[in-house]
Structures are given as structure tokens and as C-alpha cells.
């Protein structure tokens, strides 16, 4: 319930929580689903949302946070573009006594009191899950298994972490070898073009690990064009589980997807209310995520929203 007295920037004490949220951008379908989730849950939870799109720029996010401080919002939440470099502005938020919640991606501040909590996925774990599944699948393989990897944008946290997690997991089987790894920039076109070259340069590719569904979907096109059957001749593992990806999985073109859920909104609003009320929250909350195989995908697909 709220006694909405409205008016201008979020003044305190009107009962209604004002939240300033700085989003990374709108670079992918995943991200827009994330944004939609947050906006919808804010409306549903009666939280007044100040939303800002940083267009992939850390500078913009810092600016937005400063402005939220000026507007005296009740809670600040943001998905940091990069990990480091938030201490100064977070300190300012702390001085202004505005609690901060991180979503989706974390920061590496040594001073953990600068933010209340982190809500999001564990990218390393996603990579690991993908790798573990592969190890399991190929445990009986005798010869080397040639793996190619489509990375996300160079330097992006999901790219780095998924690569790391995957690498750690497949280290368990020395037969599994990454023979090529190039950035496909998280886009279908990128995934397609890089995959075409992988196929040309390497006569034998057994497995493709793509850091997101879109690159995997692009790669399917390239694989088909090269006269191979995706999912059969080349095992395809991806991350995200967006609708198109799930469809491909259900169709047997993908073999495995590690989920990375964008639907953080409801949990975020819950947290915001708790934090605003001064309740203690755990310092790290991981979204509930799962993995999908073809069968599971067929099941899950009908109620997939994004």
C-alpha cells in the first residue's frame, strides 16, 4: 500500500519507494527482457522507477547514479558495465545514505559495505555447467574432441567468466581441446561469420561452445550452409536460453543450454523493499537458474516469455 503524494523527484517519507535503476543498455534480447522484467515488477510492486540506459558506458552509469543521489531516491540499483571503478560514486551514495543493489553483474570493490547486496547470475558457473555437461557426454570419447568457442565481446564479464568456467570444467578430460576461440560479439551475424571461418580453417570440429544463444543461432546458419547438420555433426552448447535458442534446442539444433535468466525484476523489488525497510539481506543472491537439454526444452518452451 502507498499514500502517493507524488510530485517531482522522489522526496522521502511519502511511503512509496523510489528506485533509480541504471541499465547497461539494450544490446541484446536478453537485456531488453531484463529491462522489461524490472519495469513491470516495479509497477506491480508500486515502486516508482527512475530508469536510465547507460548505452554500454560506465561513465554514463556513474553520471546517472550521481543524479539519483541528487534526486534523493530511496534505493539505487544498477547492472555495472564493468567490474571495477565504482568506489567513488558508491561512497557518495553511502554518504547520502542511499542503499545500493547490484544486479546481473558484480563489482570488485574491496569495501563490501558500499553496496547492500548482489542479485544475479554466476557466469563462471554457467560456463562450468556447460563444460561439465560436455565432459559427461564425451567421457567415453577416445580421440581428441575438437572444440571451437564463440566468445562474447572482448573483455565483457560474461565472456571472460563463461570462458573461464568452461575451461576449468573441461580440464577434467585432456581429450577435450579448444582449437579456436574468437569473439562473435554476442550477435548472430558475428557468430555466423566467425563460424564460417572456423569451418573453413578446421576440417574437424566436434563441439561448438557459444557464449550466448544468438551467436549459436548464427553459427547454425553457417554450419547448415557448409553442408553439416547442427546438433548432430557438431554438438552445440550455448548459454542464456532465450526463446529462439530454446526453439533451436527443442528442434535438436542445439544440444544443451545453460540458463541465464533475465527475469530479475520481482526479486529486485523484494530486495529493494527489504533494504529500504532496513532489513538485513544476504550479500549475494543468485538467481535460480537451470540447464536445458532437448527434452527439457520441449517441455519448457510453451511457457517461455522471452
Amino acid at each position, binding site marked *: 500500500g502507498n499514500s502517493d503524494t507524488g*510530485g*517531482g*523527484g522522489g522526496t522521502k517519507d511519502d511511503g512509496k519507494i523510489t528506485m*533509480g535503476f541504471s*541499465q547497461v*543498455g*539494450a544490446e541484446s534480447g536478453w537485456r*531488453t527482457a531484463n*529491462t522489461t522484467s524490472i*519495469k513491470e515488477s516495479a509497477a506491480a510492486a508500486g515502486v516508482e*522507477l*527512475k*530508469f*536510465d*540506459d547507460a*548505452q*554500454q*558506458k*560506465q*561513465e*554514463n552509469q*556513474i*553520471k*546517472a547514479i*550521481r*543524479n*539519483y543521489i*541528487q*534526486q*534523493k531516491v530511496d534505493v539505487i540499483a544498477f547492472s555495472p*558495465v*564493468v*567490474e*571495477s*571503478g*565504482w*568506489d*567513488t560514486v558508491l*561512497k557518495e551514495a553511502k*554518504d547520502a545514505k542511499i542503499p545500493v543493489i547490484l544486479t546481473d553483474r558484480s563489482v*570488485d*570493490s*574491496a569495501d563490501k559495505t558500499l553496496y547492500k547486496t548482489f542479485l544475479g547470475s554466476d557466469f563462471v558457473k554457467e560456463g562450468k555447467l556447460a563444460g561439465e555437461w560436455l565432459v559427461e557426454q564425451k567421457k567415453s570419447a577416445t580421440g581428441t574432441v575438437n572444440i571451437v568457442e564463440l566468445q562474447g*565481446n*572482448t*573483455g*565483457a*564479464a560474461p565472456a*571472460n567468466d563463461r570462458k573461464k568456467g568452461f575451461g576449468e570444467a573441461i580440464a577434467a578430460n585432456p581429450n577435450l581441446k579448444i582449437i579456436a576461440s574468437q569473439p562473435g560479439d554476442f550477435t548472430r551475424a558475428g557468430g555466423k561469420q566467425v563460424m564460417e571461418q572456423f569451418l573453413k580453417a578446421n576440417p574437424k570440429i566436434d563441439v561448438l561452445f557459444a557464449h550466448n544463444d544468438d551467436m549459436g543461432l548464427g553459427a547454425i546458419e553457417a554450419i547448415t550452409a557448409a553442408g553439416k547438420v547442427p546438433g548432430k555433426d557438431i554438438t552445440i552448447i550455448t548459454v542464456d536460453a532465450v526463446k529462439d535458442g530454446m526453439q533451436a534446442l527443442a528442434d535438436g539444433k542445439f544440444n544443451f543450454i545453460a540458463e541465464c535468466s533475465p527475469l530479475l525484476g520481482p526479486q529486485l523489488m523484494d530486495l529493494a523493499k527489504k533494504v529500504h525497510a532496513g532489513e538485513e539481506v544476504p550479500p549475494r543472491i543468485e538467481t535460480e537458474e537451470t540447464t536445458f537439454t532437448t527434452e527439457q526444452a520441449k517441455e519448457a518452451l510453451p511457457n517461455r516469455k522471452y
Partner: protein
Amino acid sequence: MTTGSLTAGRTRFRLPRKQIPVLATLALLLVMYAIGVSQYTAFSNVQVIFNVFIDNGFLLVVAVGMTFVILTGGIDLSVGSVVAMTAMVSAALLQDGMPAPLVLVIALLIGPTLGLLMGCAIHFFEIQPFIVTLAGMFFARGMCTFISGASIPITDGFWTRMSQERIGNPQGNFVSISVLIAFVVVCIAAYTLAYTRLGRNVYAIGGNPQSALLMGLPVGRTRIAVYTISGLCSAIGGILLSFYTLSGAPLIAVGMELDVIAAVVIGGTVLTGGAGYVFGTVLGVLVLGVIQTLITFDGSLSSWWTKIVIGGLLFAFILLQRLIGIRYK
């Protein structure tokens, strides 16, 4: 034959004409600010203005360097990457435990060196600045990712102090040290352009490089100098950015060159060179800053509307500026 002495020249009104674009920008900026204040209560806080400066200090410094380049009729696309590279190098060196002063010196040398090289390529080999600096941009960005694929935090005491020191009333209205540094850079640049030979040569080359050459001006030296200056400003900008974010990230400041060029041009500098002021550039940066602040304060736009509105505001601003300019010409 006799000749009466010539009384040529029009002295209808003395002051404006050259300054009109800048004055128009200033007026529109004030109007925009007024709109902000009338729409959002918190907008009137003095700190909002200070924040615009705090948040755009590095942009301002880089834009000042770009002003030099554009005044000669050139362009420097490498600035964003050089900023990032400087921040990256500082972060990496600090992480390796190098003392802060040494890091500062090294970081401040990299940008100008690259600028010098680009200037030489442009001058001696007559390659178009756009291409040379584009290659510079690729190079510097490549170096960033080469140094590290992930962002590197800075924990050095000096950097932290520079970052978090608040000048003014720490609880109330304050600015950061970066703002002061930016102001110093602006003043030095304005002085250089108005009162030194280098500055005047910059304008002359922008007006007509061939004439400048035939007038016996050091065209080559000046041209190389402006790219070096731009490199230096980018390096300073990079340091300020590393103060600002206390880290170096390989993909930071992507596309910054466009913001910078936009700021310079909005500030009344002509891309073909020869006309413009540092003060205009300051205004240009403020315009971009205020547009952004307005959008954040509104806080109801979805990602795509943000872009459309930025484009729209930019359009409205440039159109008005242009119309005012024509009106008074």
C-alpha cells in the same frame, strides 16, 4: 592620378559575427537549464551543475585537445582509445606496484607520443588524418585488450585520494580535483590559442593550409604539434578518467571520439577549420552533459526512447543554434 584613401570595411556592429555561434550556444544552454529547473525540483541544486562538471571533466579535457585538431581542419578519432589506453596502462602499472608519480609520468607520455607519430604520418606522408587516427584508434584499443581482457581496479592511495577528495563542502556542494585540473587545461588552451604563435598558426592552417605554407608559417611543425597536443589532452583525460572510475577497463570510452567531436562542433567550431574557440567547446561539453542530466532526471524513458530523445534534443539544439546564427549574420 590621384586616389582618395580607401575607407573600406563594414563596421556596422563590431563585437558579434565571429562570436555569434558561441553566444547562441550559451543562450540555448541557459534555456535548457531553465527548462530542467522548471520541470524537476532537484534540478536547481547547485550540485547538479557541479556534477555536470565532475562527470564531464575528462570529456572536457579531451575536447579541448580535439579543438586544436579541428581548428587546423583535421580530425582525431583516436582520442577515445587513447583515453582508455592511458587508464589501462596506469591501472596495470599501479597493479604491478609501480610508484604513483612514475606511473603518472609514463601515462602522460604515451598519449603525446602516439599523437606525435600520427602527426608525423599525416604531415610527412600526406595521409588523411581520418585514416591515420583511425589506425591510431585501432592500435590504442588493441593495446587495451592486449594489456588485459578484464578491467583492472586501482587501489593506489594517491589515485584514491584524487578520486575521492571533495573540494568545497564535502557534505554539501563540492567538486572533484579533476574539475580543477580540467579548468587549468581549459585556461592554458584558451591562452595558447589566443596569445601564442602556435595558437595563431593553428587558425591560419585551418583557414588555408596552402596559404599558411606560402606565408612562411611552420605548417608541418604546427600540424604535428596539434596531434601531439590532442594526444596529451587524451592522456590527461585518461588519467582523469582513471581518477573518476578508479580502474582501467579495456572497453571504456568506446565511441567517446564522437561525443568529443559533437561537443566541439556544437560549441561553434567549424569542422573545416579556422574558426572556433575553446570557450565554445566548454559550452558544447556542457550541452551534452545537461542533455544527459535531463534524461536521467526524467527517468521514464526506455532504452530506445533515450536514444531518440538524445537525437531529438541534439537536433533541436543545433537547429536553433543554426537559425540564430543565420538571423544575426
